[in-house]
């Protein structure tokens, strides 16, 4: 028996368990580029229109959001500029979640112990998890490349874009492989992996907006600099490969040196007695949510600061302002150029924070399925009070994160234009208007938790992805307005550029509250466990 005995069986098990999840990921990531390219061919049929739009998107504001356009005048380059950042973030997320799910989650739940007692090599579980995630990344990249070739794009560029997706998938699978060795808790391992991914995006945004060398510190920067359709630089794949192999090696060394179930970060003993304050469902919820929330607060402070700071050069742009503003407005910005940029950035921030909202809301279901709700409800804790103690984090945590991101952006931008007070207040407000839209997602999650608990996780995350897709490519695809209007984020006033209107915020809040109330009413009546 070697260290890899049983890898094949475990890989088949992983693919069997993910038989719905992974194909959905792969299809979304795989088809997005070709769909976008096909749409651009209709939008910009002539060389002039292409040149025109290419000039517009070299503007620093769009470069900070999406990366530089490396060559104008071709559908392929425009498509790569539009989708590649989204593609590598999605494939990175898929890889991280998949690897953690089939390594640390299995270990934490004790299921791996059962398997390891069988004929199974020491390194088989990690290898199988990496192979499952890696093969999904390669499949997504292959479909993307074939789709672009099918959309009559040059083969070299299409292969380059597919390779950028596939190799980034492999890299973040390897990063997650390391993260899975560090902590005993799968939740913390996922947090480490996604923090690396978020950091890579921010480094790239900073570098692309200012000092280019910073982008070269980021694997996402490397993926963009493979330059599909713009004089491909294949050697950047070498950088990705070297880092990925190094991560895989580190992961295997760490895995070989630790016990089953253990992490490398030390497990400290806890207090023998609970603090006097730990005496209510809300106090318990705070203990359970605070790690995640603090991590997000730090992340959002950096995020807001970086994106606000990158607004600097935008006012200097000498290009066709009207067209840029038009493009930015499709991303959710409005008004004068800088305002439009900030509006677009805060619109994206709203969706990013909504991921926390969904996480916090689904904690309800997570606690129930883990069997930790039952002993609580056997005390005098009331069902609705328990549920509200978790939903409080979905509601106020979301508002807090938006406030931190908005204030961070305002401070960073205000410091540069010499108006710290004014900008901080303005961007704080502009960020907070996103909250009611995110709360609607919390409402959906809470409603499903009460009415159809088994579906709560899948559908709530799917709703968030739908909102993201509508914002990212809704208008490019020429979707009817009513489809776009399904997303709560489409109704938020596009501050700071547009006028503030209170009506949509009110009815979004009412909708969220009504959904949550329906869910809680149903939760009071249903079986638990």
């Amino acid at each position, binding site marked *: 028996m070697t260290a890899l005995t049983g890898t094949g069986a475990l890989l088949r098990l992983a693919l069997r368990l993910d038989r719905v999840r992974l194909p959905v990921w792969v299809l979304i990531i795989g088809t997005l580029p070709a769909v976008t390219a096909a749409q651009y061919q209709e939008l910009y049929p002539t060389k002039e229109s292409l040149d025109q739009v290419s000039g517009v998107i070299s503007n620093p504001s769009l470069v900070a959001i999406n990366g530089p356009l490396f060559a104008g005048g071709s559908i392929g380059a425009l498509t790569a500029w539009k989708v590649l950042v989204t593609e590598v973030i999605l494939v990175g997320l898929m890889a991280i979640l998949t690897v953690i799910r089939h390594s640390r989650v299995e270990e934490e739940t004790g299921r791996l112990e059962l398997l390891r007692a069988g004929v199974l090599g020491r390194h088989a579980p990690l290898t199988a998890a990496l192979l499952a995630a890696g093969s999904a990344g390669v499949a997504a990249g292959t479909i993307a490349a074939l789709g672009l070739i099918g959309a009559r794009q040059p083969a070299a560029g299409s292969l380059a874009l597919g390779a950028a997706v596939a190799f980034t998938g492999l890299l973040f699978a390897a990063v997650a492989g390391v993260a899975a060795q560090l902590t005993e808790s799968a939740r913390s391992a996922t947090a480490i992996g996604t923090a690396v991914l978020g950091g890579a995006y921010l480094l790239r945004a900073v570098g692309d907006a200012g000092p280019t060398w910073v982008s070269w510190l980021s694997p996402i920067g490397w993926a963009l600099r493979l330059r599909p359709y713009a004089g491909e630089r294949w050697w950047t794949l070498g950088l990705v490969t070297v880092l990925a192999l190094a991560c895989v090696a580190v992961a295997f060394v760490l895995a070989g040196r630790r016990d089953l179930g253990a992490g490398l970060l030390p497990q400290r003993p806890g207090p023998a007695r609970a603090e006097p304050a730990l*005496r209510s469902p809300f106090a318990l919820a705070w203990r359970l949510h605070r790690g995640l929330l603090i991590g997000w607060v730090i992340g959002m402070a950096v995020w807001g600061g970086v994106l606000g700071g990158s607004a600097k050069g935008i006012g200097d742009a000498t290009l066709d302002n009207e067209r840029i503003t038009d493009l930015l407005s499709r991303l959710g910005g409005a008004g004068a150029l800088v305002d439009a940029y900030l509006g677009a950035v805060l619109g994206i921030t709203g969706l990013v924070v909504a991921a926390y909202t969904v996480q916090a809301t689904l904690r309800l279901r997570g606690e129930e399925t883990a*069997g930790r709700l039952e002993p609580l409800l056997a005390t*005098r804790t009331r069902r609705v009070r328990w549920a509200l103690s978790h939903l409080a984090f979905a509601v106020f945590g979301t508002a807090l994160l938006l406030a931190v991101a908005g204030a961070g952006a305002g401070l960073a931008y205000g410091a540069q234009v010499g108006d710290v007070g004014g900008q901080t207040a303005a961007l704080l407000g502009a960020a907070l208007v996103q909250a009611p839209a995110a709360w609607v997602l919390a409402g959906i999650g809470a409603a499903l938790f009460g009415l159809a608990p088994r579906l709560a996780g899948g559908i709530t995350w799917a709703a968030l992805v739908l909102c993201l897709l509508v914002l990212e490519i809704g208008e490019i695809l020429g979707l009817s307005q009513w489809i776009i209007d399904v997303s709560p984020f489409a109704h938020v006033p596009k501050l700071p550029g547009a006028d503030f209107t209170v009506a949509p915020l009110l009815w979004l809040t009412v909708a969220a509250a009504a959904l949550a109330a329906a869910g809680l009413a149903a939760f009071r009546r249903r*079986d638990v466990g």
Partner: protein
Amino acid sequence: MTDAIAVAGLTKSFGSTRALDGVDLTVRTGEVHGFLGPNGAGKSTTIRVLLGLLKADSGTATLLGGDPWRDAAELHRRLAYVPGDVNLWPNLSGGEVIDLLGRLRGGLDPRRRATLLERFDLDPTKKGRTYSKGNRQKVALVAALASDVELLILDEPTSGLDPLMEATFRACINEERADGRTVLLSSHILSEVEALCDRVSIIRAGKVVDTGTLTQMRHLSRTSITAELAAPIDLAAVPGVHDVVAEDHRVAFDVDNNELDAVMRRLAEAGVRSLTSQPPTLEELFLRHYADDLVSS
């Protein structure tokens, strides 16, 4: 005295599976009541209805004089529960969980808490994710036993405990009984039920098939008799006699207790040289109720 738990005709289905098929269960105040049955018989489902976690399809249930579904939160001040499968929050220490559950229940006695930690040999500073199954169970047991409540509902509380801890657990339950608390003890460990319980209910396929004190149950049951007689005797046709094995002057058989008197007379007529009789163990009572399951499997 009123009954702590009174359940009649309780039914509960999950999809097409009928988990409870008319459960009747009475637990008198102050008694330790054994709730006996194999996995999947409906013990945990009954308990979860009693805790207001599940809503019964039909039938009535009264817990401490209240409705377990409608008055859940009020009733739960007066009871403590140890689930069969204890799940703890991974990043809370055992001590924190004990305090939290105690406080949410309405307070716990710090001295009892300290004593119980010592008796169960439990380290309260370890985090939830690092406890073994037995230690997780101890956390829940200490939290329940340190609370000042009228009723303890324990769902297979010793399934992960070692024999030493099992002995500690039995001592604790006997003290609870002496303090006048009511205990509903679900178990499939017959010796535990036999040692601890005043009365027993046996549940099978969602129905309580037998209930009463062990003496009553034995009375309705059979005694095993082995006798050496002066002359051979044919008992096969005698009413109430089962499983006769005869060999010369020796005979071994089971007899229904209500026919015992008549059968003893027949033996005496044949001349008894030696005789041993054994009352049925709980295990035999139990197996009898499940005999057709064993045959069919």
